[in-house]
Each structure stands twice: as C-alpha cells, then as structure tokens.
C-alpha cells in the first residue's frame, strides 16, 4: 500500500489510530475548531483530535437543539450523545460562532462522559489587547492540559510541538501546491482526505507519510485535469462528497478554503522567544475564518488563493444556519466576483439534496 492509500485508509478508519494511541494509556483531547491551540495539547503528551461530523441523519440531538441550529453542530452533539466520542478524555471548543457557544452549554449540561472546555479566543485579529487577553486564556488552558496529562508543559516542549505542527503545515502546503499546475498532480477530493487524515493522527507519523506522498504524486497528472478550475470555500467541509460532485461534473477543484484543509495550513507560526506568545499570535494574526475581523485580511488571503491557483470559478458552500458564513456570503460574493464568477450553494451538512446541487453545479461549470 502506498502512502497516499495509507492516509486515505486512515481518513476512512481513524479508529485504528485512536486504538494505537490509547493502547499505552495516552490521552486524547478532542476539539472542534481551527483556533484550538493543538500545540499545547501535544506538548502535554496528548493527541489533539479534531472532531468531524458524519453524513448520517441526526436523531437524539434534535430534541436538544432546535432544527434551526447549525446542522454540523447538531451532528457533533448527536455523535456525542451516541457515545461516539467517549474515547476522548476531554473536549475543547472555542469562541467561533453562536452555535458552538451553545454546543458548549449543551455539552457541559448533558454529556457526562467527556468534560468540555471553552477556550475564549477574541474574534478581533491583529489587536495587541486581544493578544494579552488571549494569553491569560491560554495560560488557563495550559494548566488544564497539565492537570489532565499529569505533565508539566515546558517551553522546550512547546517549541518542539510548534515546530512539529509547522512541519505538517509546510508539507501540506507543498502537497497542495501541486494543484497549482495546469494539470494538478492530486485531485481536490484526494487532497481533502489527506489533509483531514493528517489532522486526525499523530503529527510525527503524518509528517513521514506526507513526505512520501509528495514523492509519490509529484510527477503525475490527474485524469481529466484540464477542466474549469474551481475553488471551493465556505462552511466546514468534513467529507469530500461535494468536491467529488464538482469533479464528476467536469470541474477541477484546484483550491479550497476550508478549516479541514487550506485554512489549517496556509500560515505558519512566526518565530518568538516566548512559545505561548507565538501560539497566541499564530491564532490571532490569521484572519482565515468567517468569524474573524477585520475581513480585509480574509479577502486578501482568498484573493491570494484565487491568483496562485489560477481559479476560473468559485463555489461558496453554506451549511444551513452556519451563521458566520451565511452572513458573510452576500458581502464576500461582491468581493470575489471581481476575480471570478461565484456560485452560492446553501445546503444541509448531510448534503441531502444532492440531485439539486448537481444540477446547479453542472450549470455553473457549463457557464464557465
């Protein structure tokens, strides 16, 4: 089995990684969001584990959340009620949207098996007073991780973790750059799987596999890779169904802007003698998510993607009731249309209306 296949397999069956990690009694800290400081979890000797949803219909969570709450968040809560996250030793959320704020309330009130913690991150980026506030919050979080792991987190351990995670980001970015070519070396749907798998597993292992994958694919060209070049952006994308649909319709997904892919690795930590400050600045000096301010930096980042990847058309994917992106879509459409045509798709997290989406995507690609 090649390394690409290995990572695809981990994406499909992450349980093996979980079992492997836990067999020596090591702990796993689940989280939901890009802005949770994974490096602090890792420096305490624990595995940071991003929780993703499933395409399954929601059952129990619907009697706790109103149906007008973000379906992705309801999905995560549903899985937690079904004890699918009971392998976690704790769950960490952060202040990124109203639905996640309520997920914290709900988790804290109804899920006894896994404690939940909220890291209070400012939503205003590039603000010194915000950095100072956030440093207090990070210190509290660090103490929590020390208590949970029974390990004192040293500056050296933090620096090592920062370097390790930055290495993952560099490798993912290098692999992603192979999509800039006229005929990309890796398909968008493959890349999302690789990116998500590398987030789920220990970075020490992921980095080795990523290096091998880059060697494996760098000389290849994907089949039918000369169609319209599409960038996908919007709400969290935790399965490749929509990307596959675009590919099936003749589009080539050369770039994406999701927290499960590019948002995760586009920026690296800037050098800083104080590792906690380095982490704080890393999180508060990258305006990649819909919840962040000012938006001008986010537009710059997206324009950079459009230019670098030579994008012909943009699909903006909104999960219903995903407010940061639903609110942003009308504004950002105006901005992005200066660069390329934009299609806004508003749909369920489970992508239940796939037939309708197919028609709209097909028409968009034909128009391109």
């Amino acid at each position, binding site marked *: 089995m090649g390394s690409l296949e290995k990572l695809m397999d981990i994406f499909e069956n992450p349980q093996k990684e979980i079992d492997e990690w836990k067999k020596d009694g090591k702990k796993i800290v689940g989280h939901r969001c890009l802005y949770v400081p994974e490096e602090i979890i890792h420096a305490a000797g624990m595995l940071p584990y991003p929780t993703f949803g499933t395409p399954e219909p929601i059952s129990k969570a619907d009697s706790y959340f109103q149906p007008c709450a973000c379906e992705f968040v309801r999905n995560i809560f549903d899985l937690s009620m079904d004890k699918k996250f009971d392998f976690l030793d704790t769950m960490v959320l952060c202040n990124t949207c109203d639905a996640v704020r309520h997920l914290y*309330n709900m988790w804290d009130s109804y899920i006894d098996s896994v404690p939940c913690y909220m890291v209070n991150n400012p*939503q*205003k980026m590039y603000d010194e007073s915000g950095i100072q506030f956030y440093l207090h919050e990070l210190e509290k979080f660090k103490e929590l991780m020390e208590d949970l792991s029974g390990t004192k987190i040293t500056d050296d351990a933090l620096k090592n973790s920062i370097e390790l995670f930055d290495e993952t980001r560099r490798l993912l970015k290098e692999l992603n750059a192979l999509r800039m070519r006229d005929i990309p070396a890796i398909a968008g749907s493959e890349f999302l799987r690789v990116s998500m798998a590398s987030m789920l597993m220990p970075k020490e292992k992921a980095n080795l596999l990523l290096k091998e994958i880059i060697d494996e694919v760098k000389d290849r060209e994907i089949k039918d890779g000369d169609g319209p070049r599409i960038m996908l952006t919007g709400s969290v994308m935790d399965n490749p169904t929509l990307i596959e649909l675009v590919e099936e319709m003749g589009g080539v997904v050369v770039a994406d802007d999701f927290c499960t892919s590019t948002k995760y690795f586009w920026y690296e930590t800037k050098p800083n003698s104080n590792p906690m400050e380095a982490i704080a600045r890393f999180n508060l000096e990258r305006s990649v998510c819909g919840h962040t301010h000012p938006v001008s930096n986010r537009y710059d980042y997206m324009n950079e993607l459009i230019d670098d990847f030579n994008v012909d058309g943009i699909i903006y994917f909104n999960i219903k*009731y995903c407010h940061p992106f639903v609110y942003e879509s009308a504004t950002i459409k105006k901005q992005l249309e200066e660069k390329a045509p934009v299609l806004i798709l508003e749909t369920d997290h489970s992508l239940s209306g796939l037939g309708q989406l197919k028609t709209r995507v097909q028409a968009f690609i034909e128009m391109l």
Partner: protein
Amino acid sequence: MTTKVTAPGKKNLETTLEISKAIRAYYAGVKLAKMEGKPVVWSYGLVPREIFHAAEAPVLYLEHLPLMIGAKQLSGHYMQIAEEEGFSRDVCAFHRCFLGCSVAKEREPYLDKFFVSPDLIVASNLPCMSETKSFLYSADYHDAPYYFLDAPINTWGKDVPEYAIDYFAGQLQGTIDFMAEKGIHVDWDRLKEAVRLSKKLVELWREIDVCRRAVPAPISSVDGLTAAYPLIQLPGTQLGVTLFERLLEELKGKVERKEGVLEDEKLRLMWFGVPPFYNMGLLNYGEKYGAVVVKSMVEYIAGGGYDPAILDPDQPLKSLAYKALIDIVNPTAENMLDFIVDAVNDFKVDGLVGVVKRSCGLLPGYMRLAKDTVYENTGVPTTIFDLDGLDIREYDDATSKANLDSFIEALLASKRR
C-alpha cells in the same frame, strides 16, 4: 395555509404611552441631527448606550428600528429587499429587515420618519456574532467607516476576571477613540454622570420589577416590553430615570389598589424568546382563560438582569464593561438560566412559553436548557414552538394559538388536580 389574524397588544399604563412618545421624539431627534449635519451612528444590542449619550451622539439601533416597523407590519417588505440583495432567509429577521431598510431604493413614509443613513458604524459580537457581518454590508453600501467592538464570551458566570474586564474596557475606549476621529466626542464627566444615571435607572427597574411580581399582575408583558425601552435605549439619561420614576409611581398605585390586568387571574406565564411585534395581541390571547403573561425575558435582555451596585461612576469604562459581560444574553448559559429560574420563582410563574425565531442563532439555543433547568428547579413546565417575532410571512396565527390553547389547558387541568 398561513392565516394572518393579528391585533395590537392591550396596554394598561399611562406611562407606557409617554414612553411611546419618547421613542418617537428620539427618532425625530436623530433625523433632525442628520439634517443639521451631525454625524449619525448605527449601532447594536449591547454596545453600552451610556457612551453614545455621553457624546450626545444620534444613534440608530439595528434591533430597534425593525421592531418599530415590525409593529406596523412593514418588516416583511424590507426583508424581501434584503433577500433580493442576496441574503439568505436564514439570516436573522432583524438583520434582514435592517439590511432591507438600509439598501431600499424607496422607503415607506412611516419608515422614512425614522430612517437615517449612517456616517459611522459601531458593531459588536455581543450578544450574537451575526450583526458584525450584516453591518459590514451596510458599511460598504453607505461607505461608512466601521468599528468592531469585540466582547469575550462569558465563561465565568458573575466572577468575570479582571483581564476580561480590562479587555472589553479597552474595546470601549477604542470605540470612543474611533468616534472622536469622526467628530463625536465623549465628555468624561458626562460619561461618569451617564453611569450614575444608568445605576439609578437599574435601581428603579428593580423596584418596578418587585411591583410587577404582585398578584394579580398589575401589568402584562405588552406594557412591559414598551416599559423596557428606557432600560435598553436610554440608560445614562435623565429622561430614562424620569420615565421610570413615573412608571414606578403608577405601578405602586395599581398594586396598592390591587388592580390587576385581570380581575380573576388564574395563571401566570413567562414569555421566553422574541414576541410577535406585528401581533402583540397574541400576548393577550391567554387572558380569555385567565392567563397573564407577567414577564418577558426580552424586557431584560440589555441590562435588566444585574445588580446595579456593580456600576461605579468613577470607573465608567470598567463598570460598563462588567455590565455588558455579565448580561444574561452573553452566552454561555449560566447567567441566563439563573435569571430565568429566579424570575419563575419571584413572579410565581405557572408556565414558560418558549418561542423559536428560526433565523436566530442565539435564543433558540437556550430553549431545551431553559426548559430542563426550570423544571428541575421549580417544577414549572415549558412549551416550545416556532414563532418568528419579526417576519410576519412566517407567522401562522392558528398554530400559534393552538399551541397556547393546549399549553394553557394543560396548566389549568394540572392546577385543578
């Protein structure tokens, strides 16, 4: 099929009529200020009003203007305009309505009495994040400078740490600096005075609140929602204090005379969520059963749920920061749930009516928690149903009334047992 059988709510107080006049006078003042060339601010929910009053700044508030035109059943038209502009129907009805007003090519004469374009915008993510983005669209549209005031989510309950207060106080100072750049200057002595008046206002509100607990209830929430206007829009003003002094006086008289909304009060309800501003008569609907809506959470949404002792006029920014951070709608849920349980006990509430505004990212998230917490702590049941308080296009009168019928009948049956 949707039926639209709507009615205005019945008001019983003379002071609420005065408050209504004060509202109209406020908007006329904003309009006049614009005509005189003064810069007009657009702002929102929990940005402390005291700062604007201390600068004598004319301000339009995102959540209040839609309410005004919602009461005239005009909000649907402006939401439609926002939807045509590309905004999803999942965007908060208040935001959609305000956006529609903001970008409309022509405005109804009624709206035109209130609407003024912005010269600057002060946005915040308190209590919900949504408005920061919808205001951005308006800022682009009107080419108005925009300031974002970031508030931490309250994960501490009432023991907010100093570093969080400092952060938000710094954000308030940033707001003051931003306004100064645009020609609106906050006078420090006036700000201290505004905090003193704000403290007085909340002290009066608490006395009013005690009066409202009387059985029979001297006023229903229809009056209560208008009565809350000074608390929400006029903290830091002498006018707000004067109106509340009169309100307190009037209420005391009613309580002394044992004058209730109903002669034979059988049930006391509390409303949780946004009431239907286009059909406030729905809050009177249960009165045929002897049920009075004695309290509505929305009346307390901006400053009604805290101890005024926290306000220190000599530390105005820190005081305002603390007040905003412990507000009941700054999630997480701890302060909100404490507030509801206390309210149910203090007001001898028999049942909680929770209404879900489909497009709201904030209040629906509390519903199940509120229902369980209230039941566990007081034994009082809750009904929850869909009702968009602003978008009349989504309103179903028959279903809303049927929901109230069945809940009230069940409560009455339970009382008989």
